[in-house]
């Protein structure tokens, strides 16, 4: 196995040339994303430059609190992204979503690092940052789907919800069918990904490890462990997210507060 080839900045500049193809297609067909496409490329570059610099420092200093700080920053960003993506009030749910994302990230991360990899320190940046990043990225997507659909379906099917309350159901009993559907919807993409992994596409972590020059047998072991961690993190985050946000989403009479909704959800 060979060491990974570093991309020089001049070679990276050539990489941007490739983006001319989608830009030309978008302009030719007058798709309305031309501005967003350019903005997103610029934003991606700036964001990754900063992240690259920060991670260089984190890796070099190897301080547990600096790694933990990085994870907390990621969770805060994910927190607001979930609220915005699901079309919900960040102000009302910010602490509940933070706690849910923290639980959904820390539990599988700790298991992966301390039990599976047997690395003595949880905040070892080489492992903690990429593994937490992958778990959190998936938790974020799942939460946008799960929590967003949970509250939207409660709003759209208010009649069914009130019917249950009108038969004497507790709040928890009345929301159970909605929670069950939201959890299924949130987990479905991860399940579908696990069904086809390796056949349709090679997942990110496995690709990274293969390119780093590690044997495929080790790469698949990492991939299996990360998939299970992602699935676990997703389930924890969605259930905790719904359970915790529920505390401030209903009036004392069990009626869904209308002011929890903000703007349009990004995922239908």
């Amino acid at each position, binding site marked *: 196995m060979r060491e990974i080839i570093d991309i020089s900045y001049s070679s990276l500049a050539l990489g941007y040339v490739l983006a001319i193809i989608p830009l030309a297609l978008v302009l030719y067909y007058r798709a309305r994303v031309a501005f967003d496409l350019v903005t997103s490329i610029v934003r991606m570059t700036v964001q990754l430059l900063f992240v690259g610099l920060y991670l260089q420092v984190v890796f070099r200093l190897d301080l547990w609190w600096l790694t933990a700080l990085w994870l907390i920053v990621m969770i805060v960003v994910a927190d607001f992204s979930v609220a915005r993506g699901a079309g919900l009030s960040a102000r009302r749910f910010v602490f509940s979503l933070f706690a849910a994302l923290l639980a959904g990230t820390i539990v599988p991360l700790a298991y992966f690092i301390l039990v599976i990899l047997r690395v003595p320190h949880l905040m070892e940046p080489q492992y903690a940052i990429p593994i937490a990043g992958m778990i959190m990225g998936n938790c974020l997507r799942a939460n946008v789907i799960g929590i967003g659909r949970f509250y939207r379906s409660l709003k759209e*099917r208010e009649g069914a919800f*009130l019917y249950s309350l*009108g*038969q*004497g*159901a*507790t709040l928890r009993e009345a929301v159970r069918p909605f929670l069950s559907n939201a959890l299924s919807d949130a987990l479905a993409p991860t399940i579908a990904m696990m069904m086809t992994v390796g056949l349709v596409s090679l997942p990110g972590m496995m690709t990274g490890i293969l390119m780093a020059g590690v044997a495929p047998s080790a790469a698949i072991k990492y991939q299996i462990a990360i998939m299970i961690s992602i699935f676990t993190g997703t389930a924890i985050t969605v259930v905790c997210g719904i359970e915790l946000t529920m505390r401030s989403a209903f009036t004392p009479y069990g009626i869904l507060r209308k002011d929890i909704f903000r703007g349009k959800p990004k995922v239908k």
Partner: protein
Amino acid sequence: MSMVEIKDLAVRLEDRFILRPFSLSLECGKTVVVSGPSGSGKSTLLKTVMGFVKPSQGEVSVEGVRLDGHSVWRVRQRMAYVPQEIDMGDGTAEEILRRLFHYRASSSLRWDEKQVKELFSEFMLGEDLLQQDVRELSGGEKQRLAFVSAILLQRPIMVLDEVTTGLDPERKRAMLEHLKRRSDITALVATHDETFMGYADEVVYLEPIASAPSGNEETD
């Protein structure tokens, strides 16, 4: 004993009433029909009694307990509500009915297939309907299924919103006879069905409200 006591209850949306100040005392075992034209606040009154709409003034007491954000959960366990627009959730009729028996409020009840079949027969619902998806049922079938579910819950108070509207005379009579026979059930009914009024112990009229908004009650 007064089962439901409504005192000077009103609901306002911004500056307009959607339910004008209203009082009523519902005695045990009686059926009281609240009638009035569309937009007079009949459904709003029932929703307020169920705690789904917060009143702007006045109060509701059920079996002597004043309805508030704390007591509402206990109070709802003493009532069974059949709304005007029925959405019972997803699943077959049997799944929906069985779900009721899993509620903590119904922990003393047991699923009795024989009783369910007898009630289906009484209200002219085919047994095969138990296996049908409730969202595919007709309006009349949903009304009768929701009425059956309210009976199965064995609650002392029924809150019924236009429960017989659109039913043919035979099916309507089956429901009304059942209510008439059951002296253990106190019913608060919103309807403009004249047949129902004939069966009621008391009929109360709500005055129309000019340019009343609908379906946009204050719920917070």
